[in-house]
């Protein structure tokens, strides 16, 4: 390790023990408090698996059916618990199969440590069997990565990996360990990492900036708060709620910020973005002060930047200085941890209510309700809608289940119509939009929070991208509830083809297998619903089940998700049909 790093030994200077690098890997994980890891064995990581076998009482290794599944499971684990998820794989294809999950964790700021085996250091660069330059490949999609070629460097590399993954704005890291480093012996002791010289994860909140922010907020006639996942990652849910309630400011959320404040809260005005609610999108362009908290102005939220909130002064609370002015120019930028910054802000904001401003949100909600929401969740047409299924599941789980979604129409519908009462209840692939994320992520979520009801909701397309993880559910007896909303289409792409490509449905219609039989093939209880009148009972049976359960709901084939901000359009031009 070339980088000056501060390590701290919690257990007063233990005597080093002489062990192999591979045993050190497992002991490091145990020392970091890891209880569950996800992975897939193979040649270059076999020494570590041999140690996992010996330590199976202390660390639970979950064999997924594909390395991508291991990363998504680790992500689900991290997202519901706030802890670092761990995935492990062999070199070559094992390592490259991790990349999608790593990229997903990078863009969604999910703390994850990936450990990969590598060919022996003498073979590096020689095109050896199952050799890939995984450090090179993963560089653009990791927060940090490194290759270890000597056993004695393993503890510091893993200590740094956990520290970097979790601190500041979290993210994925990868540690690549050559096979000879796993085999060779050294004197092991473990010290946790508490600082890296060149890395300042949390900027100290500048109180003067908070005061400037408070002044803008207090003088605003139509202030509007938009929050993102930074609130959840920073455990600032309560602080946000207090600021909102004291200031009386309407607040909306990005998809990854969902559930930080209960959906039913009177000042929660809904979801932002392309398929978000009508009012928060429209009124972003009407507010006079826009207060962004722990969000990064993703293009799915802003639509065209040239017409985004141009009338408003922008206050940006953010932990990552690279996000300031990246997409939207901030008039006041408050760098720092959301929890601390909001604690400092709270006493400085005036107690107020903004009733007529809030009424504008309510009026627009009425329009959206009549035009879109009502026909979605109380349909009068024959076919089952995605909205009514989500609503049924949500009501029966009292808004307390963690909903893990895949990517596409069902995802937008779930975020729109599920009422969340508990934080960390919406686990989904936001930034990368990874189809296939849902099922394995739900496995990780359920294992991290076995006391919670975890419902995986996928479309028929994304489900089949990681369907093999049913094997993991079966083998591990993970009591996750798996719902597939089947419209025999790649629905979201089909919707775009209908709206923007003159209904040319290029490669979006799917001829699907019998999903019930497939689930039953894995000995998972399964049911298919095709009619509305069967829905309530089927959901009841699913929720009542103590075991994993699969429910397929055949929904209307060509329903669309509205409202919609067409790609590249202004959020003011949000369409209701």
């Amino acid at each position, binding site marked *: 390790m070339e980088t000056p790093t501060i390590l701290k030994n919690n257990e007063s200077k233990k005597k080093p023990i002489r062990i192999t690098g591979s045993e050190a890997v497992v002991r490091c994980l145990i020392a970091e408090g890891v209880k569950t890891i996800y992975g897939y064995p193979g040649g270059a990581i076999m020494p570590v698996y041999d140690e996992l076998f010996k330590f199976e009482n202390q660390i639970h290794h979950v064999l997924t059916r594909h390395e991508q599944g291991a990363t998504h499971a680790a992500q689900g684990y991290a997202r519901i618990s706030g802890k670092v998820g761990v995935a492990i794989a062999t070199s070559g294809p094992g390592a490259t199969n991790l990349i999608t999950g790593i990229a997903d964790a990078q863009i969604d700021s999910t703390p994850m440590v990936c450990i990969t085996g590598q060919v022996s250091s003498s073979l590096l660069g020689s095109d050896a069997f199952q050799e890939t330059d995984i450090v090179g490949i993963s560089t*653009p999609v990791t927060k940090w990565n490194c290759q270890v070629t000597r056993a004695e460097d393993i503890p510091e590399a893993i200590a740094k990996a956990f520290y970097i993954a979790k601190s500041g704005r979290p993210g994925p890291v990868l540690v690549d360990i050559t096979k000879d480093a796993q085999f060779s012996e050294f004197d092991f002791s473990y010290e946790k990492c508490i600082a890296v010289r060149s890395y300042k994860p949390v900027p100290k909140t500048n109180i003067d900036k908070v005061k400037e922010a408070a002044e803008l907020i207090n003088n605003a006639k139509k202030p509007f708060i938009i929050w993102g996942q930074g609130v959840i990652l920073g455990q600032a849910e309560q602080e946000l709620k207090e600021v909102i309630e004291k200031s009386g400011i309407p607040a909306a959320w990005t998809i990854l910020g969902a559930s930080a404040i209960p959906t039913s809260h009177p000042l929660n005005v809904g979801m932002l973005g392309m398929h978000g609610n009508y009012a928060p999108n429209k009124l972003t362009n009407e507010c006079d002060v826009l207060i962004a908290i722990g969000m990064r102005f993703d293009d799915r939220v802003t639509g065209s930047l040239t017409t985004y909130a141009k009338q408003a002064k922008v206050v940006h609370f953010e932990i990552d200085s690279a996000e300031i*002015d990246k997409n939207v120019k901030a008039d006041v930028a408050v760098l720092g941890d959301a929890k601390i910054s909001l604690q400092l802000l709270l006493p400085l904001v005036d107690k107020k209510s903004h009733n007529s401003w809030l009424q504008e949100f309510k009026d627009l909600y009425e329009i959206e309700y009549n035009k879109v929401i009502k026909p979605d969740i109380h349909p009068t047409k024959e076919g089952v809608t995605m909205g009514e299924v989500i609503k049924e599941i949500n009501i029966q789980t009292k808004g307390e289940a963690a909903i893990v979604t895949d990517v596409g129409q069902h995802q937008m519908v779930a975020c729109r119509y599920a009422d969340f009462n508990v934080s960390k209840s919406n686990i989904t692939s936001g930034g990368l939009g990874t189809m296939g994320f849902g099922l394995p992520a739900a496995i990780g979520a359920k294992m991290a929070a076995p006391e919670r009801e975890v419902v995986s909701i996928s479309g028929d397309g994304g489900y089949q991208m990681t369907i093999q993880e049913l094997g993991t559910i079966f083998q591990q007896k993970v009591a996750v509830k798996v719902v597939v909303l089947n419209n025999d289409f790649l629905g979201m792409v089909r919707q775009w083809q209908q709206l923007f490509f003159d209904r040319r449905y290029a490669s979006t219609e799917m001829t699907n297998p019998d999903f019930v039989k497939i689930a039953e093939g894995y000995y998972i209880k399964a049911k298919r619903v095709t009619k509305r009148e069967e829905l309530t009972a089927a959901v009841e049976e699913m929720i009542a089940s103590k075991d994993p359960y699969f429910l397929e709901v055949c929904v209307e084939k060509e329903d669309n998700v509205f409202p919609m901000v067409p790609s590249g359009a202004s959020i003011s031009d949000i369409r209701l049909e």
Partner: protein
Amino acid sequence: MKNQKQLFTVSIYTENNIGLLNRVSAIFQRRHINVESINTSPSEIIGVSRFTIVVYMTEEDIKKIIGQIEKQVEVIKAYYHTEENTIYQISGLFKIKSDLLFEDRQIQNIIKESNARIVTVNKEFFVLEKSGRKEELQDLYDKLNEFGIMQYTRSGRIAVTKDELKISTMLQEAFNN
């Protein structure tokens, strides 16, 4: 001015780390930016490296790129400077047939006037070294090229800033906090 492309010199102070060059260059690549020149070397602080990168882009974009570079774990600090704020040099090497040196008086004059230095001379060839700004090297190249150049190469830019950068104090603070 903000949206007009211009040359910027980027100085990055980093830990000495395998793979960091890849990480930094990937940030330019993502935005489809061609790096004009790049140089890495030790800096004034023991154990700390300094990257000097020259790019042609807008100030608005370079600011964002600096943010993304600084975000890398092993980057201590990154700066961008305009041409006016830096003192910079590049270096060029010219390999030329020795016959020309003795046969053509004019070459001797060119060498003298350009303040180029003769690094080595043998029977077959001699090597000239010239440091300066890009235009000065180009000028020398054009003059020598009339007689024939066997080999020519030019280094990336190295630069120091007119302003103080205070890296040492920054490193002290980082470890004390």
